[in-house]
């Protein structure tokens, strides 16, 4: 690849400022990345992530992808990481996790080994491969006009369909997120409980059910697992009741 790129790149020797900027940005990126992986506190991780994103934005600018750098900072660092932080703070998961302990047997050594192997492989691939198709300018030149103009033109002509599809995707994502994250109304009707909880098969202490002090009327029609879970939780609280016993049995060993 270096040989191929050597042909394509009409390069002069790199200038010192360029190299310097690259080195610093690279250092920032890697430091941030390692920080994300290593930090115990999720908030620290998020902040390290921001650092990485900035570094990458710098690298974009270095490669004349100015618009992208701006978008990267605004969207990634400005929105996505903020969203992360919101969730972290909101759910109260800023407790520290013990990184040193690894409950899954063999996970860490294998992970390190495989990742190292993969990296070496990819780097080697870079050396020997001819994986570029050599079809420059499928979409258009990348210089000759401001970056924004070029990207814009491309978006609205060659890549119009993906553009429209992506906008639809965004709407779907928003709707999905709203549905997923909707807190169920604190009601006593088992129907609402069944509706709101979109993931099935979960047992375990249900904080909502614990609020529900009155044991639901468990009839033979109650084949909804959420209902059964609720009955189980309530029965556990109330001290057991015979009618839902059958449903409980089925639920407990799921």
């Amino acid at each position, binding site marked *: 690849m270096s040989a191929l790129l050597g042909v394509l790149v009409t390069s002069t020797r790199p200038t010192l400022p360029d190299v310097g900027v690259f080195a610093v940005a690279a250092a920032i990126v890697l430091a941030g990345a390692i920080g994300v992986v290593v930090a115990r506190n999720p908030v620290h991780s998020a902040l390290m992530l921001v650092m990485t994103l900035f570094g990458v934005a710098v690298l974009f600018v270095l490669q004349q992808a100015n618009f992208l750098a701006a978008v990267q900072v605004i969207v990634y660092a400005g929105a996505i990481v903020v969203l992360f932080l919101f969730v972290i703070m909101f759910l109260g998961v800023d407790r520290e996790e013990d990184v040193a302990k690894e409950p*899954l047997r063999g*996970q860490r050594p*294998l*992970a390190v080994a*495989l*990742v190292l*192997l*993969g990296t070496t*492989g*990819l780097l*080697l*691939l870079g050396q*020997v*491969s001819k994986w570029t198709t050599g079809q420059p300018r499928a979409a258009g030149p990348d210089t000759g006009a401001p970056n924004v103009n070029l990207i814009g033109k491309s978006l609205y002509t060659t890549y119009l369909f993906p553009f429209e599809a992506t906008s639809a995707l965004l709407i779907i994502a928003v709707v999905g997120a709203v549905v997923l994250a909707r807190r169920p109304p604190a009601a006593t009707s088992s129907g609402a409980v069944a509706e709101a909880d979109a993931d099935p098969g979960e047992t375990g202490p249900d904080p909502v059910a614990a609020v529900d002090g009155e044991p639901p009327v468990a009839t033979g029609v109650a084949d909804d697992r959420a209902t059964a879970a609720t009955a189980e939780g309530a029965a556990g609280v109330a001290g057991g009741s015979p009618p839902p016993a059958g449903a409980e049995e089925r639920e407990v060993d799921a």
Partner: protein
Amino acid sequence: MLHVTYLIILLPLVGFAVLVAAGRRLGDPAAGVVATVAVGASFLVSIGVYLDLLTVDAPVRSYSQNLWTWIPVDRLQVHAALYVDPLSMTMVLFITGISFLIHLYSIGYMKGDKDFPKFFLYMNLFVASMLILVLGSNLLITFVGWEGVGTCSYWLVSFWFTRDSAASAGKKAFVYNRIGDVGFLLAIFLVYDKVHSLDYQVIFHRIPEIGPANVTAICLLLLVGVMGKSAQIPLFPWLADAMEGPTPVSALIHAATMVTAGVYLLCRVSPLLHASPDAALTVAIVGAATAFVAATIACAQQDIKKVLAYSTVSQLGYMFLAIGCGAYTAAIFLMVAHAFFKGLLFLGAGSVIHGLHDEQDLKRMGNLRAYLPITFITFGIGWLCIAAVPPLSGFWAKGDVLDNAWAAHPALWVVGIVTAALTAYYMSRLTGLAFFGSDRWAGSHGDTPEPDPAHAHHADGAVSEPHESPWIMTVPLWILAFFAAIAGVMAIPDSQFSLARWLDPVFASTLYHDNLSSTALWTLAIVDAVVAIVFVVIGLRLWSQRADRPALEGAFLRGAWYINELYDAVFGRPSERLAAFCADVVDPRVIDGAVNGVAGAFRGSGTVLRRTQTGYVRNYVLGITFGTVIVLGFMLTRMWWGG
């Protein structure tokens, strides 16, 4: 009338169908009447067909009727077709006629049996099958009838299947038949291979193409089939055991009809036998040997029906001897005469058994001529016929066979005449023990080998006087006795009754023309007569007063040359051991082991592979990474060593 030949077969089948549907409702005796009427109607139709056939010119006296095409497959075209010629008409006439009489007799004999309708159902089906056999115009139709009679024989022999011995006897009969059938089937295959047609006329035309070696092979294979069906050596033991069936069954199937199917078959393929002298000689030798062996066994039997069974085997041997010597007409003559007098003898024996409330042991009979006069007279006629005492039919028929044997293979004539002597002797022994002497039955009671339900109320011990059978049983006896006596007229050459002239269109080209001088013929006839009379007298003298002569009843003969024991040791035990081996070792360990092993292997591999499904997402990501690394490795190797 010829064009309704199919009715001959159809009428008994209709009877069968009616009895299947409504037999139980019809009951005793209506079911029997239905069956008898069906067979009687068939007999009348066959007379009509016979008369119609006479109008056809003698040299080409035959009629074919193609009912429908059964197997239209490329090179094999088999039609459901009937072929009427003098040979098949002879068979049809005496089959339907004797069947009618036996059906009539059975209405009386089987009275009171709880399965009365079922009996007649099977009998009608049997008659229909036998008619298919003899009227078929190709080997395959004949084979259909062949199998049909075998199956009906199985059903009828094991009619009282709640008795173990009867059930076993039925199976034995069927299995021996099947062994023979393998030969028949192989013959069919060979014929098809060489001629590509199974039609008799086509085969006979193409004999030159088949080649002598193949013709011999075909004939020998057919002989194997015949050995099974007609109880020749080595497949004869089933016939004696088949006496477990009701006596009318023995009379019809094992004397007059089914066992003669083999004779018919070999006569039908007479052109083939004519083309293969080796096969013909084999047939003759087999026939002669069987006749002799069976006759010796009959000399020492105690059961009245067993004597008659071995006698049948012996007489069949004579018929095959005749066929092997090229004397087809003689064979047919003996077959017809034998059907009459053996049928008569069996029905008479049935009458005796019936009269003595199910006693079959000769040693416990005696002096029955005083109590069963009609039976005695008719049985006596049958006895003299089979002993070949002139001027009854047996004398002429057996004489014909022996004359031809003398002309063709004198050594076999010797065997034949010795057997004739033995025949006269053992039949006289039987008659003497049963009808003469003292009332040996007075002190004991029958062991009920045949559960005769009409006399169930006598089962408690005291034996009352034997009584003559009712008219429905004695009328058939008279009719058969009449025909048995006069059937000799068929021997008169160039007369209206001459069997030879009647069968000439069928056998003309293949008939063996013995060139015996009239001196030779007279000498042989006198020898036959003398031997017959002398041994009849000897038999009567020895056995009419005394019932116990152990010196003359050796264990070897009584045990039928121990052939059953031989087969058991050679085939029976090893088969049982093989079956036990398969059941105990092959089935559980090999077959189940393989199946369970496969299942177990899958289960085991599943158990092992399941360990990758830990449920932890991180493990799964590890798996993805692992896959990616593999793909990378593949790409790298491609880059480096292949590009």
